[in-house]
């Protein structure tokens, strides 16, 4: 009789375990089913622009799965796209969600791009957006959206000079049928930036009336960026250059002077370039030279060599050295289009006794200058609308050949002959 009671007990234990296991399985399955349903429901809410409900569902999901990148991204979207919320605070919420997505998950590149877009378009933080984009491009070097947005940020912060590598990258990455768009973008970015910035100024809310001039809009935009990112030397540099271009050297000096207290401001080559340029134009050549001596990073690039040339020409009066520096600058984009610098080089060549080379250089400078006359620019803009027509293609090719830019000429030739 004792053997029967032990086996009954073991049998009961076995039933309890199995029952518990089955219950656990049922609970887990139920939870998973609920989870999946909730995700589907949340996605459905997003699709139907039911932002509040989407947020409620996604918030619950996030509580359960705090490191789920896709949930974070959806919740961020639910904030960012809800027009009923104040745009700044919703953007900040969205950014806070996105920035916690680590770089080692599958969605990280896309998360960085979205965060950058929000920072740029809604929070007006172009420099922070740029830094985040650079992370995205490290994660996914072929992320075209990242490159495109980076290009726009450079255009909108007075740094179109730096766009060439991005253009080349996008051109290489893009399918053949899209390349003509990038070629057009490249032309307008470098030669007629209002074409690019007008649209973005409207999106960013800077344009209050259709009559507002592009120049005033640019200043408005830069000042707004400075308000959002007051410690970014690049923005101050862009504002200083705006005033310098308007001829207001006093104000340009005031702007660069304001950033004295920003730590490491002289670590930014573009700031140093702007500072030195303003100092040169205002006749403070010794100060300009002292600032130039602190040029951060590598002693190279269009801006560096152009500045070196200006100092050699105007301070040291070493016209031979100036012409060498100018030559280095002019070999790097946008040097090919910088006819003013080409004229300076011609003058310095003449003054250093190289008359024949000076004459050739001056003649080339005149030819490039002609390409930027208002009437010629209009012709180019018209040609870009219908580049496949032979006369229009010839106008475009003439432009790039005059500028000695064989790559662009080749690209246009290939595109328009397809």
């Amino acid at each position, binding site marked *: 009789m004792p053997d029967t009671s032990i086996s009954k007990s073991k049998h009961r234990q076995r039933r309890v375990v199995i029952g518990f296991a089955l219950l656990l399985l049922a609970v887990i399955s139920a939870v998973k089913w609920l989870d999946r349903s909730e995700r589907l429901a949340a996605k459905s809410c997003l699709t139907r622009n039911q932002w509040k409900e989407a947020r409620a569902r996604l918030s619950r999901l996030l509580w359960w799965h705090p490191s789920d990148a896709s949930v974070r991204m959806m919740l961020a979207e639910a904030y960012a796209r809800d027009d009923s919320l104040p745009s700044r605070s919703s953007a900040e919420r969205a950014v806070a969600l996105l920035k916690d997505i680590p770089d080692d998950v599958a969605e990280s590149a896309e998360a960085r791009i979205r965060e950058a877009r929000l920072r740029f378009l809604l929070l007006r933080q172009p420099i922070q957006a740029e830094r985040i984009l650079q992370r995205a491009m490290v994660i996914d070097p072929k992320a075209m959206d990242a490159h495109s947005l980076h290009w726009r940020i450079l255009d909108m912060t007075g740094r179109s000079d730096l766009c060439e590598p991005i253009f080349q990258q996008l051109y290489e990455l893009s399918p053949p049928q899209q390349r003509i768009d990038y070629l057009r973008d490249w032309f307008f970015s470098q030669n007629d930036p209002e074409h690019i910035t007008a649209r973005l100024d409207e999106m960013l809310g800077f344009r209050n009336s259709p*009559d507002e*001039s592009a120049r005033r809009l640019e200043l408005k935009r830069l000042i707004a960026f400075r308000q959002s990112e007051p410690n970014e030397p690049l923005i101050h540099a862009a504002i200083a250059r705006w005033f310098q271009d*308007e*001829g*207001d*050297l*006093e*104000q340009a*000096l*005031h702007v*660069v*002077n304001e950033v*004295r*207290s920003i*730590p*490491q401001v*002289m670590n930014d080559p573009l700031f140093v370039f702007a500072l030195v340029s303003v*100092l*040169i*134009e*205002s*006749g*403070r*050549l*010794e*100060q300009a030279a*002292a*600032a130039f*001596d*602190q040029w951060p990073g590598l002693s190279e690039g269009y801006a560096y060599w152009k500045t070196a040339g*200006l100092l050699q*020409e*105007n*301070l040291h*009066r070493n*016209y031979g050295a100036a012409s060498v520096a100018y030559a280095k600058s002019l070999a790097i984009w946008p040097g090919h289009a910088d*006819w*003013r*610098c*080409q*004229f*300076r080089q*011609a*003058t310095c060549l*003449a*003054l250093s006794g190289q*008359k024949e080379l000076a004459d050739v250089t*001056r003649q080339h*400078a*005149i030819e490039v*200058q002609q390409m930027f006359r208002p009437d010629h620019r209009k012709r180019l803009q018209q040609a870009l609308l219908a580049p496949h027509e032979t006369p229009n293609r010839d106008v475009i090719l003439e432009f790039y050949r005059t500028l000695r830019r064989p790559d662009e000429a080749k690209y246009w030739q290939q595109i328009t002959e397809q």
Partner: protein
Amino acid sequence: MDFAKLFIVIVTGLSILAGCLEERKPESAPSEFSTSQDFPSLASERYQQSVTDQGQDPNLIRPRFADVASDVGLTFTYFNNAVPERFFLPEVMGGGIAWLDFNNDGWLDLLVTNGCCWPDPERTPSDVITRLYRNKGDGSFEDVSLAAGVGLKQFGQGVAVADFNADGFLDIYLTNYGPNRLFVNRGDGTFADVTELSGTGDPSWSTGASWFDADRDGDEDLYVVNYLDLSFENHRVCQYNGIAGYCGPGSFSETPDRLYLNQGDGQFVESSTALGFVGENGKGMSVAVVDLDGDLLPEVYVANDMAANFLFTRSRTSPDRPATQPIYRNIAVDGGCAVSGAGQVEASMGIACADFDGDETPDFFLTHFYSQKNTLYRNLGNLQFHDDSFGSRIAATSMMFNGFGTIAFDFDRDEAIDLFVANGHVLGPNLQPNEMTPQLLRNDGRGRFDDVSATAGACFTEKAVGRGVAGADYDEDGDLDLAVANLHRPLTLLRNETDTGRHYLGIQLRTRNRVVPVGGRVVVTTRGRRQVQPVVVGGSYLAMSDTRFLFGLKDAAEADKVEVYWPSGRVDVFAQLPGDRYWMILEGDEPRPVIREPIP
């Protein structure tokens, strides 16, 4: 479960707190630039320096000028016939102004051109005429326009003065919108209109003009600068951001300049092409004639509005040169003074020519448009020039001004040539800025300029639409005074009342054939320091200045040596010439003191 949630809440709260703390870093202490040369408040540095130095540096003299025009009887306002909303460009150019001793009494008189009703000059009010003011020698002027016979109704622009018939009396050439006029001085205080006889009545729109001996035959020839081909037929109004204003030179074609060769019998022959005074797209505003390369032959520099400037020099003679080859050629492009250093054409209204950097070669200063820099071309020798607008600080002082007439002079007698600029915009009263203050730019002795206008007197704080400027020591006190022609406001006479406590040397040159010795130069040496002033004819804008030389001597009571290089090749050298007076030097003769008591 509640415990877990509590745990989560606490952890979350701590994380948020840590994040806030991380975002709100304490402000770093302001860091110094890692350079021995920090830059202080740069925006106000220039004015701070000029104002501070005025008070603290005993060697810097505070400028003082006072507008005495109405006190001395010069009550003249240029009539520009501005009709509302017409925006006819000649209305905005302003009139000419010239200092000349027309009656040879030793006192400089003043001539100012006037506008008229256009296109019907006969409708002009009777009191709107060219004005000639005789200097009475007691600090005041008397209007002798009608008596002198120069009180004509014409849309006056510039004026050039010379003794073209070598009779000892200065004659007057008036440039106009419309036919120009030549008046010969009869020697009795009156003038006769000899335009038709002379053949110099160019009907183009003329602006600047200069007399000089272009063909070296011993008499004065006449270079006339012409501006635009503009008439009521092709006149139009331009829009600037929807506001109407005057159209600029780009809206019209140019008209070529003229060179009238003096035939010696009262007649002139237009010979610009024959002599080589040919340039493309010349929309001329001003002309200055001066020797730039030390060969005693004058060059002719023409400032063109939004077009490349001209620099005409004589072709070097050679046995192979065919007789038909022009004597002059335009070398501005090769010389580096046609456009700015960055290859941009500039507005180019007024010209001043002097040795600004003390290297004994004459440099050029040109006034330009608003938000364009003015330009200083440094002469490097061999007719090569460098745009030194940055290094000279001229760019920094000029971007927010629209410059016109300009005078180079040593206001503080520190042996460095300073600059005066009359400013005023051209787009019309509907657009701002329109009126502007004039400027006084002090040369530090190395060809670098500081704007010291703020300390120079109330007249430098008053805004006007300034145009021509002519300088003269009208009160014979050894410093240069400035007559400024304005639009919409009376003429200004800025008497120089700067108390320098320093000495000066005044020199008046004369040749036996009465031709101004342009091509020559005067060199004054004091304590081993040489100052070189070339003979300059023309310059400024629509104006003619006192042709005498004024050298500042600082604390030296005399010049150790004075050398006069005449265009004939002769060099006269004089030692120990006492200062604080004028000396008249006739070629080949000893200097003769000009005794005249200055007006108190």
